[in-house]
Structures are given as structure tokens and as C-alpha cells.
């Protein structure tokens, strides 16, 4: 009974461990899915705010990819003794946070200015210059 319990507990620990193990492929799949959803949102959404949120989603997908690749490079450096290339990916991810924040600030300001002029945020109305 006791032994069986221990076995079950260790199974559980191992299962959890497997679950939590870093897998590059799953991180990239998630990142790719986020990126695709974001791109679809930019192309299909009618509300300009949702379009901006979709762009942010794409940037977050890029950040996730960078952090995942950085972690993979750390693991690789541990296993093989190749030169360590993990830090540049993490720094890149941090930089993207700053860039995304700047872009969001400017983007929202432009949307507000536009809304004051036109009283609309629908992308179908943004077509004054079609000839």
C-alpha cells in the first residue's frame, strides 16, 4: 500500500516534470498561433482599436519566440559547451516591450485624434482617398 502510494507520487512528479519541461517546439507553436491570430485580426477586424490590439498580440508572439529561443540557447550552451547566446534574445525581448509600448502610445493618440475629427473608429469609413 505504502509502496504503491510512493510509486503513484513519483509518477505524478515525473508527469508534472515532463509537463513543465521546456519544450522549444510547443513554445514556438504557441507563438506561431498567437502571431497568426494577430495577423488575422489586423486584416479582418473592423474596429481600429481591435486592429491595434491585434498588432500588440503579434508583438507579444515575437517576444515569446525570443524568450523561448534564448532559453533553448542557454540549454544548448550547458549541454555542448558552445558559446553562450542566451542573453541577446532576452535583451531583444525587453527591447520589444519598450518599442511596443511606444507604438501603442502613439497609436492610441492617433486613434483619439482621428475619432475627434470623424466620430468613427470603423476601418470601412477610413477611405477618403480612394480614387
Amino acid at each position, binding site marked *: 500500500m505504502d509502496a504503491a502510494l510512493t510509486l503513484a507520487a513519483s509518477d505524478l512528479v515525473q508527469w508534472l516534470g515532463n509537463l513543465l519541461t521546456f519544450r522549444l517546439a510547443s513554445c514556438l507553436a504557441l507563438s506561431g498561433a498567437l502571431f497568426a491570430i494577430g495577423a488575422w485580426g489586423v486584416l479582418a477586424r473592423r474596429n481600429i482599436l481591435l486592429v*491595434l490590439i491585434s498588432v500588440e498580440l503579434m508583438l507579444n508572439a515575437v517576444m515569446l519566440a525570443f524568450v523561448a529561443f534564448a532559453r533553448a*540557447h542557454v540549454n544548448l550552451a550547458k549541454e555542448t559547451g558552445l558559446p553562450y547566446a542566451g542573453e541577446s*534574445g532576452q535583451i531583444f525581448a525587453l527591447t520589444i516591450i519598450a*518599442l511596443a509600448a511606444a507604438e501603442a502610445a*502613439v497609436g492610441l493618440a492617433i486613434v483619439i485624434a*482621428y475619432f475627434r475629427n470623424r466620430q468613427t473608429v470603423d476601418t470601412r469609413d477610413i477611405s477618403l*482617398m480612394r*480614387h
Partner: protein
Amino acid sequence: MNWSELSELLPVGVVLAAALVVVFLDLVIAHKDRYALPMVALAGCVLGLGSLIQNYLSLTTYYKQSPPWFSGAAETAAGAFNPLILGGHFSIDLFGFAIAGVALLAGALSVLSSAHEEDDSALSSGEYYGLILLAVAGMMLLGFAHDFLTLLVSLEIMSISTYILAGSRRDLKSGEAALKYLVLGAFSTAFLMMGIAFIYGATGKLSLSEVLIPSEQLVSSAFLIRGGLALLLVGVLFKVGAAPFHFWIPDVYEGAPTGVTGLMATGVKAAAFAVLGRLAFETFGPRYAHDWAWLFAAAAVLTMAVGNFLALRQENVKRMLAYSGIAHTGYLLLGFLVSPNADGIMLADQLQNAVFYLLAYALMTLGAFGVVGLVREDGRRLERLEDFAGLSKEHPGLALCMAMFMFSLAGLPPFAGFFAKFLVFKSAVDAGYVLPAVLGVLTSVASMAYYLRVVRAMYVDPVRATKPGEAPAGARCRYSWTTNLLIYGAGLATILLGLFPSGPTFLLR
């Protein structure tokens, strides 16, 4: 890392400092002359150019040779010129100097073309000139960037400033232009970043000249590298405005204030081509030309065809110049086709030709947009073809300069545009891409149709009355000495550059 190397970036620092000065000056002075802020901004650009030339001269005297055209062409011997500074993040080479110079020129001329605005308060504020200088600083950094991180940050400094600039006039078209530019710009930047992420993941490197050098790094999967480079190219082609990613250009160029349109058409384009050039010459190089150059060639042919064909149907001169800008992107792409068996000298020649094109194109386009930005006495802007009627009678000098810009853009001798086109077509033929060059010549001949329409409107078309029952009034414009300086200066430079095409290269020796 040697921090004293930061002094190589002093020109950028000068421009940034001028940007801050302009913004604060706007707050401090109470009763300002309307030329005060533009003159400070102009002084920033001129000082930046002076500092750039000073840097170039001191480097040349120190190493007793001029810098290499790009870092890959540098000799590796000890004591030889090493263009890579700050741990390889920036490359102080001739290509960078040239792009920074074109950016400063574009900034100075677009400041001049905006200085006559007084009715529109948003365009005479300190923020407007400050943002122009910030955008110029971003372009200069982009010219020197040699690493994906510095490349991306410089690109965003430039882009975010330009998003705001595009929307700085308080009318509907300007707001719409800013919104479209922002959404599509951010969208393309996301692709660019994802491409960089893939390349980083596959190689662990961020340096432009090293990423494709094979090594035993991580998932050395060819798919990851190729996918990354493809995403990166999508982002870059978007930024330069090449077909099939050109659709944002006409609306953004038409809606933005004309001074900003000039800056976007020349400075931003030159900076985006700096990225493309570094990718083509340093990342891919002759070694990978088989894989990628055909893609550039296809994009070039498509861009020339689309730009010239759509420009034929435009009645609005500003929009016509936007489509002509797309066509010129196509010609410029021809200058970046690398032959698989090119050596360093040939690559340097090609880069030199492409840079000459960027310079000539900047002069004639900024001059043309300077004319388009003028306001007629009756309050209409010189935008539609019929607004140009009678310009040759009212302002013969102005009309003559506009005609010269049109002939030069069409590629007629003896103007700068002729030699620019000749040089890029020649470098495409030398690299073995004859068919794209021939198509370039053909589309260039076809382009004469829409450039000459502007000349005809100015010199031949009868003047019509604006309202029925009134006497017909010619196109009398309000313009000031800054606009005169811009238009006549650009006109003179277009002729001089056409008569002495080796002038700029002579200065380098």
C-alpha cells in the same frame, strides 16, 4: 567595448540635441519670429552634416585611406581600417556615411519646405520640427546599424516619429494617412521582428554579416533560417514600398502634409534601402545570391510595372508622385542585385551607384514636393493637374524648376535622374540581370507620359476660371525665401549632378 568609439556617432548626437533644443525653444520664447524654429532645425541638420564630414575626414587622415564601402569589404590585416564599432553594433563605412548624408539632406530640405506654413499652427510648432530631427536621427542610425538590435531600434525611432508627422496637420486626410501608416507600419514591423526571432533562434547571432555563416549552433534547421529571412524580407520590402507591399504608399503620401511626404519619399526610403542594402550585400552577399537575388529581381520588375502603370491614371500630382516613388523603388531594387561571382570591388561599385540614385532621387523629389506644397492665392494647394495651369506665366522660374524635376524623374539627360538610372541599369547588367534592366528601360520610357503631363499643364494648358462668370486667374502662389531656397537649390543641384555625375565620388577621394 571601447566607449570612445561613441564619438563616431557624434553627428547623430548633434541632430538629437537640436531636436531637444527646438522643442524647448518653442516653450521658452513668447513672441517668436516664424522662422526661428525652422532655422534652428535647419542649423541642426547643417551642423550634423558638418560633423559627419569632419568624422569622415579625420578617419581618412588617421587610417590614410578612405573607409570601405561596407564592412565586408574591409581588409582584415592588423592596423587596417575596422569599420565595426561598439562591439559590432554599428559599422562606420562609406555606405553608412552616404545614407546619413542623404537623410540629413532630406531633413534639411523638408524643414525648408515646411517653413512657409503660417496658417496652420500645427506645422509651425516646435514638436513638428523636433520630430523631423528625431526621424532624421533614426535614419542616420539605420544607415550605420550593423546588428539586428540596433537596426530595429533605429527603425522604430524613425517610424514612430514619422507616424506622428504624417498626422500633424489637423484635417481628415492627414489623420487618415497617420492611421493607415501606423497600422500597416506596425504590422510590417511585426513581420520583421518575427523574422529576426527565427534567425536568432537558428543561429544565436544578431550581427548582420554573421547570421548566414554556417556554424554548429542550435536547431541548425534550414527551414528556420529560410523562414526567418523570408519574413524579414517581407518587412523590409514593405518599408521600401516595393510591390506587392506598396498599397499603403499612395494614401499615406497623399494625406500627409507635403513637407512630411517629401521626407517619407526620400529620407525614410533611403534608410529602408540601407537595411535592404546591408541584407543584400553583407548578409546574403555573392555566396547566397543564387537563392535570393531572383526574388529581388522579381520584386523590382513587379514594382516598376505597377508603379508606372498606376501613375499614368492619376489626376492628382501629389498622388502621381507617390506612384512614381513606387516606380523608382523598383529601379533602385535593380541596383541591389548581386551577382553570384561578384568580388568586393564590384559590390562597392554597385553600392556607389545605388547611393548616387538615392541622392539624385532625394534632390529631384524634394524639389518637386516643394513645388506641390505651395498654396495658391485662392487658397487651393498646387495638387491637382489643373491647379498648375498658367504657372509658367505667373512664376516662370518655379515652372522651369518643376519642369526640370519632371524631366529628371523621367530620366532625360542632362539631368541627375538620367545618370542615376543609367548607373543602376548598368550595375544590374554587369551583375548579369539583363532582362530586369531591359524592362526597367522600357517602363522608364513609358513613365515619360505622366511626367510630361505636368509640364504640359504648366506650359500649354489654358487657364480656366475657378468659378463660372469670373475672369480666368493663373496659379499665383504664396511662397517665401525658404521655399525659394529649397526649389532653386534642388533645381541647381539636379543640373549640376547631371553635368558632373562624378562630383560626389570626387569629393570622397
